[in-house]
């Protein structure tokens, strides 16, 4: 069941795989899924891992289960109005009540959303609400109040909901609602799934209990089309608006360990005092450092647009969690050294650069695109020296990856350095690689 679901959700940049399906199946077996709204809730818990996922998730859900295709940035209402599912639903709804005047379109959408997002939880609430109302209204016919419930409904039919039309699905919802209630004879009188009962959803309070539409529809509506809920484009070149995403990944380079070590000198000293009975003493060893060297190509026009966002990113990093940040500047490539100031006046020879602790993480930021003669033998030798000293090094290139093949110098430098595009995504990859290096390094 739902075999194509992971694939479909992956197309919306969500993480879904076989495990998601298995967990969904388990949730069904445990009786968590009785309505479409339940599927929404369960899948949301399983699939999303970040508030930014909610938008894509809602879009994926609507297109998979209801064939409602939401265009990027479009409001949910509009997408629903366009959809086949809504048209069918509306037709069916109005067929039953042609004596009444046609409600407002917005109201219809509200009702539609409420029905989609009706969960077992809401039904439970309606039942509770009905209980309260029952006490309020003793004249109500209630001939067989203690009638046994049919038990929780389990989904036994292996059906892909996409093949079931919405009408049928909603009918099922209603059936479920009736069963869940189970206690009242005049079941449909109470639950307004089809909008036919006087106690429908839409915020009406019943004896202090809010009925139905537990906000699921509202949430979905708010989420879709809200730029806040769309993920930051982690594949676009670093800009001011995705700096924070990059910053989050950069935090990964923080080196932080906490161990409790045996304090050998103290143990021996105290042990001798005790006449040879060695009672161990411990001390805490805390390592907490982020050491970063930044080498920025700030010469030439090609790099100009990126310098601001790069320096902003790393200065933010410095104020947030790094304590040790060194920045060097160069133009195109290095000859014997780099400069410690933006205007490239204070020269720092390579030997001095590599005199630093080899645990520094080094980010070289440049387009690596230059005239082939500029990248001569000595310059390459210097790069290699730096690479050799700092195992955790990465070249971040603002040039789009598809242009890399077109430049000889990029190709050459790529053979020395692991090169990543200067995007939040690329930074994350670089950081992951650096961390791997560190572990390897520690073992030695």
């Amino acid at each position, binding site marked *: 069941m739902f075999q194509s679901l992971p694939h479909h959700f992956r197309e919306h940049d969500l993480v879904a795989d076989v495990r998601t399906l298995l967990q969904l199946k388990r949730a069904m077996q445990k009786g968590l899924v009785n309505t479409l709204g339940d599927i929404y809730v369960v899948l949301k818990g399983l699939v999303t*891992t970040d508030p930014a996922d909610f938008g894509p998730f809602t879009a994926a859900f609507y297109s998979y289960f209801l064939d409602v295709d939401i265009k990027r940035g479009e409001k949910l209402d509009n997408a629903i109005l366009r959809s086949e599912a809504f048209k069918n639903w509306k037709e069916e709804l109005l067929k039953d009540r042609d004596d009444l005047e046609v409600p407002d379109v917005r109201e219809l959408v509200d009702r539609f959303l409420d029905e989609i997002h009706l*969960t077992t939880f809401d039904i439970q*609430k309606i039942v509770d609400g009905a209980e309260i109302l029952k006490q309020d209204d003793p004249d109500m016919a209630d001939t067989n109040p203690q009638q046994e419930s049919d038990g929780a409904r389990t989904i036994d039919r292996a059906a892909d909901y996409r093949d079931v039309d919405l009408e049928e699905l909603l009918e099922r919802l209603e059936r479920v609602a009736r069963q869940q209630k189970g206690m009242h004879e005049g079941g449909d009188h109470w639950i307004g799934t089809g909008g036919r009962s006087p106690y429908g959803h839409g915020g009406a309070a019943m004896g202090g209990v809010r009925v139905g539409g537990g906000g699921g529809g509202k949430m979905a509506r708010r989420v879709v089309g809200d730029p806040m809920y769309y993920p930051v484009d982690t594949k676009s070149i670093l800009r001011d608006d995705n700096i924070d995403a990059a910053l989050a990944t950069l935090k990964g380079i923080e080196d932080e360990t906490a161990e409790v070590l045996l304090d050998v000198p103290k143990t021996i000293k105290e042990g001798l005092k005790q006449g040879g009975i060695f*009672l*161990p003493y411990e001390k805490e060893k805390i390592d907490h450092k982020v050491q970063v060297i930044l080498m920025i190509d700030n010469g030439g026009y090609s790099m100009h647009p990126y310098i601001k966002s790069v320096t902003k990113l790393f200065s933010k990093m410095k104020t947030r969690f790094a304590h040790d940040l060194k920045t060097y500047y160069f133009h195109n490539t290095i000859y014997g050294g780099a400069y410690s100031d933006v205007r490239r006046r204070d020269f720092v020879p390579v030997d001095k650069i590599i005199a630093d602790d080899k645990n520094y993480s080094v980010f070289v930021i440049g387009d690596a695109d230059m005239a082939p003669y500029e990248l001569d033998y000595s310059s390459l030798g210097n790069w290699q020296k730096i690479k050799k000293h700092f195992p955790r090094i990465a070249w971040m290139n603002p040039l789009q990856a598809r242009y890399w093949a077109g430049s000889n110098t990029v190709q050459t430098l790529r053979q020395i350095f692991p090169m990543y595009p200067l995007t939040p995504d690329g930074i994350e990859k670089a950081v992951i690689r650096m961390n791997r290096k560190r572990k390897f390094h520690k073992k030695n």
Partner: protein
Amino acid sequence: MANTTTWTGSDSYLCDPELAQAFHMSRVLGMPLLIEGEPGTGKTELPIQFAKDLSLDLFVYPVGSKSTVEQFVAKFDHVKYLRDSQIEVLNAQREEKGLDTKLSTGGRHTENLDDYVMLGPGAKAYTNINSVLLIDEIDKAPREFPNDLLYALSHRKFVLPESGREVEVSEDDMPAIVITSNREQELPTAFKGRCIYHYISFPEPELMKEIVGKHFSNIEEELVQRCIQLFYQFRQLGLERAPSTRELLNWLKYLRNFEVDEALAKIESREGLGVLIKTQSDMIRVKRNSY
């Protein structure tokens, strides 16, 4: 059998339906519930109130920058172990010298390694059926911590150090595990995949009124109205550090000590806002925007 009925909050805790559903689902599936959201939205309160309401055992593991899975599961007390073994030597020497008094090891035996294993909250929760386990602020942990937790969470099994004893729990007996995070650090994707994810969105003014009602039973309607109105106004200023639910409650707690008129006057003159606004630049902005 763990408790898997829906829980929708208690007299002193208002659990919004979305959170209640996610929490219910996590308990039914035996998966941990990962709650993220702004500070002060009641993330930590959920398991505490749940345990209190149903009188279940609650085990809390507050995560810090020095947290290790060892502390969470169980730790072997090498110091005690060495001490006791030394005491055995000492006692033998004393006996040789004909001394009667023996030094005590507090009932522990060095042959029995289990005596030196100190169970952490994780192992305790696993051995207590139908308990609640709170792993608070996991984003403060060192990077390796969530990954190390993965094994225990997906296999429902801990192996105790040195003694090698296994603590295992069946799917049905899984404690209700709630993990909270303030998103100061991204958690590994694999870790999030093992959890039911829920993001607590900031409560709407209406819900906020109900929350206030849960905390203060007899408080002037007028005062609450005005405070909430200002509170949301402040939040919209785009402050460096927007005030949270917790701060609103503290503010009300403070204002409750005065007569209504006096409290309202204090609000209008922006007195005692330090409880709500936490940085100097924010305070300047609030005062500037107030008149």
